[in-house]
Structure formats: structure tokens, C-alpha cells
């Protein structure tokens, strides 16, 4: 099967064929049906997100109303204010979440780029063994590994630290990242690499000048997935952090569920928290979209 990895911009064969058929028939029911379907799907996908954002700007009583209103009758930033002032303050939590995510990206890239390079292009001894180890990491529920990790981290002072949590997140992301990057590096045409070698590049320079640019979409994909995973991860953060000043955003969201006195849900604050959690992920995705999607496609199709 062909190794076409950059077909994202090219009009694929099937669409051309169908366009041909449509031309013969004229814009028929088919075209409208497809169009309607697309619009319907988009609506279904976006509606929940929109609902959450709208709910987050309802005044507190309306947010807790039953039955609920669809559109806010009044716009208010009450819920955001409560979130802002929640215990150590939203800024602290955002800083912790963001910091951990950035560290996770850094660790992940620093480890997986060379590793993927090695697995794609070098005859590493005991390669199967390495794959088995990586596979293992993928199928063991990481929730069970948290306690032994926590006890070890406590001894070396890595608890209550963003670095410690980033290490946990990196460990979770590593197998998937190595897999995607490895496939992407393996798909880089040998001629490019040989050309660099002929020009006198050593393996490191080949990596920097040939592979990374060629597999850039996959690198962006790995970074993006690492960010999203770390930004949203809950249980590891709960186990590793016991100082309020080190809590991350997901922990605050969990708290919003029992926030009103005696354990009731603060729906408005929950929606505000959900909205704030979603915004960076969607923003980064939209900005880096063309890398992300093609990176995934290239990383998975061998």
C-alpha cells in the first residue's frame, strides 16, 4: 500500500470520481442530502459546548434553576467570579495546569524524538523487547501505578511539584507518542536522508535537518496530545498534590461538584470551569489544525 502521507491538500480520488458523477447528474438530491447531513452533524457536535458556555454566563440562581433555561435570561459573570476567587484563586490553578502541561510537552518531546528516530532508522539490538516494554505501558491501568509512584516520589521530594506531576503525565503519554513519531520518521524517504549524509551530516544533524522538518506535523500532534492529556488529567494530580497551592484545574472542577454548603453542586461554577478548561484546547487545536490532523493520519497509516 502506498505511503502517501501528505494527501491532506490533494483532492482524493474518490471525491473526484463522485464529483464526476454529480456533474453528470447535476446538483441532485445527493448533494443536498450530504450538505444537510454535514450541517446536522456539526450542530450536534457543537451544541453541548455552546450550551456549556451559555450556562456559564447565567446568573447564579438561573444556573441552578430547575427546569433549566436554554438561553440565559441575563448575562452575568458571577460564576466566573466565584471560580476566580475559589480558595487559592483561579490564577494559581491555571498556572499549575499550564506549567505542568508545558513541562509534559518538553519531557515528551525530549524523550520521544530521539527514541522514535532510533526505532525508525537504526538496527537497535533487542528491538522487539523495546516494543513489548512500550506496549506494556499502554495496557496497564495507570491508576494502579499511581500509589507506588507516589510513595517513591515522596521519598525524593517530587510530590507537590509540577515536575513530578509532569513526569507522571509523560509516562502515560510516552507509548502513544513513540508510536506516532516512529511511524512518521519511518515514512521519511530515504533519499532525503542519504542526500544529507552525502553532504557530510552525522546522525544528529540528519535528525535536525531532515527528519524533524519532514515529520513536523507528527511532532506537533504529539505535543498537542501531550498538552491535552496533561491539562485534563485528574487522578494523578489528586494523588501527587496535597497542597492547595499546587492543585490543578481538574481538581477544582471536581470540587465544584460538592461546592455549595453540604455537598450540593455549584452548577454555574462548574460550567465556568468547564468553559475555561475547553477554551485553550480548542484554541490550540484550531490554530494548529493542519498539522494535527495530517500528523495523526501520517502517524497511523503505515
Amino acid at each position, binding site marked *: 500500500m502506498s505511503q502517501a502521507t501528505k494527501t491532506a491538500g490533494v483532492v482524493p480520488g474518490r471525491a473526484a470520481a463522485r464529483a464526476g458523477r454529480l456533474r453528470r447528474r447535476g446538483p441532485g438530491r445527493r448533494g443536498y442530502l450530504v450538505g444537510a447531513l454535514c450541517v446536522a452533524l456539526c450542530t450536534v457536535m457543537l451544541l453541548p459546548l455552546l450550551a456549556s458556555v451559555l450556562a456559564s454566563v447565567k446568573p447564579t440562581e438561573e444556573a441552578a434553576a430547575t427546569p433549566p433555561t436554554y438561553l440565559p435570561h441575563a448575562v452575568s459573570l458571577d460564576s466566573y467570579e466565584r471560580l476566580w476567587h475559589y480558595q487559592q484563586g483561579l490564577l494559581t490553578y491555571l498556572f499549575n495546569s499550564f506549567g505542568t502541561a508545558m513541562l509534559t510537552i518538553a519531557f515528551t518531546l525530549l524523550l520521544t524524538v530521539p527514541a522514535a528516530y532510533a526505532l525508525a532508522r537504526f538496527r537497535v539490538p533487542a528491538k522487539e523487547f523495546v516494543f513489548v516494554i512500550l506496549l506494556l505501558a499502554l495496557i496497564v491501568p495507570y491508576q494502579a501505578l499511581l500509589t507506588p509512584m507516589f*510513595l517513591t516520589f*515522596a521519598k525524593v521530594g517530587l510530590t507537590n511539584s509540577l515536575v513530578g506531576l509532569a513526569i507522571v503525565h509523560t509516562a502515560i503519554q510516552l507509548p502513544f507518542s513513540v508510536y506516532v513519531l516512529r511511524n512518521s520518521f519511518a515514512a521519511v524517504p530515504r533519499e532525503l536522508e542519504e542526500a544529507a549524509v552525502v553532504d557530510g551530516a552525522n546522525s544528529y544533524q540528519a535528525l535536525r535537518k531532515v527528519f524533524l522538518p519532514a515529520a513536523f506535523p507528527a511532532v506537533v500532534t504529539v505535543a498537542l496530545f501531550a498538552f491535552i492529556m496533561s491539562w485534563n488529567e485528574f487522578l494523578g494530580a489528586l494523588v501527587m498534590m496535597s497542597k492547595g497551592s499546587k492543585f490543578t484545574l481538574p481538581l477544582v472542577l471536581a470540587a465544584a461538584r460538592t461546592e455549595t454548603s*453540604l*455537598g*450540593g453542586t455549584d452548577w454555574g461554577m462548574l460550567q465556568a470551569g468547564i468553559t475555561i478548561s475547553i477554551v485553550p484546547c480548542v484554541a490550540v487545536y484550531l490554530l494548529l489544525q493542519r498539522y494535527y490532523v495530517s500528523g495523526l493520519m501520517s502517524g497511523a497509516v503505515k
Partner: protein
Amino acid sequence: MRTRSWRAVLATATAMVLLGACSSDDDQTANESIVPATTSCAGTGDLTMWERSGGNKQMVDMLVAAWNTKNPTCKINLTYIPHTEMVGKIAQGIASGEVPDLLGMDLIYAPQFSKAQQLVDLTDRVRDWPELKTASKGHMTVATYENRLYGVPLYADVSALFYNKDLFTRAGLDPAKPPTSLAELRTYADKITALGGDVKGYYLPGNCAGCNIFTVGPLMWASGAKIEATGPSDEPLTGEGVKQVLQFTRDMVKAGNVHQGDRAENGETFHLQFGSGKVGMMGTGNFNITLARQQNPKMKFGIALLPGAAPNSSASFIGGDLVVVPKGSKRVADAVNFMKFLLSDEVQVDVYAKALNLTTREDMVDNKYFAAEPLVRDVAKALTVGKTPYTTTFFEQINSPQGPWLQMLQRAYYTDDNLDTVIADAKKAMKDVASQG
């Protein structure tokens, strides 16, 4: 990791034997004489404190704020931990040595942690405190293990029967005469449900283990039954009262005396139910007084004790939190000072009573704030007939959403399974849990 725990326990045991003292704080010198506690901070530097979420957050915030105002160089940094994770978090903290200086803990877990020697023994430090003689019985019982004391009350909740006087009048019942037995409760509920509309006579939370032990447990206690297995080889769920109450609740549900939606109540909206004005009578806690007033200012309601099968029998669940000191804490003396602060006359009146929360000392019930609030006085009566379950496996036996207590109740309320089988199954499961505890 394994050797470390062994060594810690061995070291502590040795220290205890050699010193003959019961202080298990590794960081203080063996011969330190215990300075009498005061209501102010003795050391310097902030204290760290954990407290579970989903409790009486307002109360705890007020108490911490009061301490911080009095001791600005020794502030308490409070962190709220999601309450479902609290037990795990405390255990991890202790195992890793990263513990807060003091801890607010759901009182029901104290036996488990004191048994495991994970709390600092405070007996010698609080010896002869007059305040403790009148402190909440339920709290003091669970804070005691093998005659040593490990904590003092932080705040108290009691359960009682709230009843809607407006609905009573509409149903032709005397609003000054709440039911005094299960049979009366049933009759009154029938009459109120007959009013129709969206009104029902009673309330049963269908998916919340804690709500049920808080409000249905006392019905069993009042009927002479025992619920929890206190330890291995102890028999749980004994007494005719268990079956009587299960039958009572099943009949209530079948008679249509509870709303359909009650079945999904998992505790998150429990405290909002009575204030809706749609429930005639409901077991709930003292916290519901202010809440109901805020929700429904015009509603007239009264408070009675939760009844049992026999006329004029009653019981209540004393819940709330304790302040304890985890093993490994570096500020034991100041933690104890905080405890004395909590139990002091001024704090009892000017912080607890002023906020219309129960005072944790029975002798402080007569104060100016309560005098203006007959309802609070009524609910404080529940302290006298109240109990707190004592077991080292409370969470798994009773409070767990996946545990045998809730399963038994759900089968009684919503199925037709034979009640003897239901009780027998729950007994077996609870015994299994207790035998491992």
C-alpha cells in the same frame, strides 16, 4: 517502602515502651514536658490543615478565620480535599510522611485511623480540660480508642425530623403535634400525600448511603436495633427494629408517599429537598434550618425527634467532623491550642451559635443566639438521644455508594425481595468487611 513502614512502627513501639508516655510524635524530644494549652498559637509560622469538601464548609471557614484573626503570625492554611478521596489521601500522606499539621476528619473514620496508630494520642495533653466533659458524646466516643483520646469535635450535625407546619394544617393535622412513632409517621404521611398536587408526605433518599445512615439509621436505633459491626466477629444488623423499619420504608414507597425523583438522590441535592415545600416530613439535619429559611422564607416548619416503632421512642445520628493530629505532624502543640480555642466559651457562642450551628459543647446550648431561635433549641435536643456508629470499617460497610448498607436499603425500598433474605445478605457482607478491618 515496606521496610520503612515496619521501621516506623517498630521505632514508635519502642519509644512508647521506653518512655511510658503516649506521645507518638517522632519530632519532639522524649523528655519535653507538655506545656498547658492555651487558645492562642505558641509557635510561629503558618499551620497547614486539610479538611474534607462536602461538609459544613461555611462553619470551618468561619472557625479558621476566627483563629487567623487572633493569631496573624500563625495562620492556618486550609486545603479542601474532595471528600470521596479523603481516606486515600490521608493514608498516602501518612505513608509518605507528608502530613498536614492538623486535620479535619469525618468523625466516623476516627476509629479506623486510631486503630492503625496513625493519629497522635492527645490524652495527656487534654487531661483535665473541663470543656471536654460536656463535649458532644458522639464525637468523644468515636475519638476514643482503647481509652486513649485522639481528637475533639470540630463541628456537629444531628439528624431530626423536620415537618412542614403549613402542610400539616392543610391536611387537618395539628401543627404542634409531630408524629412520635413510625405508625403515626405513616398515617400523617398518607394524609399529606392525599392533598395531591406535587406534594408528598415523606422523603427517602434512594442513592445516598450517608443520607440514609443519617436519617433512616436513627429510625432503627429508636426501634432498638443495632446496625454496624464494630469489629471482626461482631454481629451487625441485630434486633427486630431492622426489619420493622425496612418494612415501614417499603410500605411508604408503595403507598406513593415519596416523590419518584427521590430514587436518584445521591446526596448532592439532599439539603434542598425540605426547603422546596413539597415534602410533608423528612429526616434531615440541623444545617437545614438556615437553608430552608433561605429557600422558602414563608414556610412554617417545626422540628421533632426521629421516632422508632414504639411510641415516644427516638434517636438521632450525631455526625460532623473531628479535629485530629496526624502522625508525623510537626506542630502538635499548636494543633492542640487550636482545639482549646474551638472549645472555648467565646468561640462556642460567638462563632458556632451565632451562625446558628450546633455548639459542640452541650452546656453552651443556652445562649442568646439560640434563645432567639426555638428551632435550633429543638434540634439541639437531638444531641441527648444521639449516637454515632463505632467501627473501623465504616466506609466500606456503610458509607460507600457500593456498600452493603445502601444495597440493603435499595432492595427494601424498590424491590419485592424477601426482607429476611435482604437483611441476611447485608449481614453477611458487613461481617465480611468487618472481619478484614
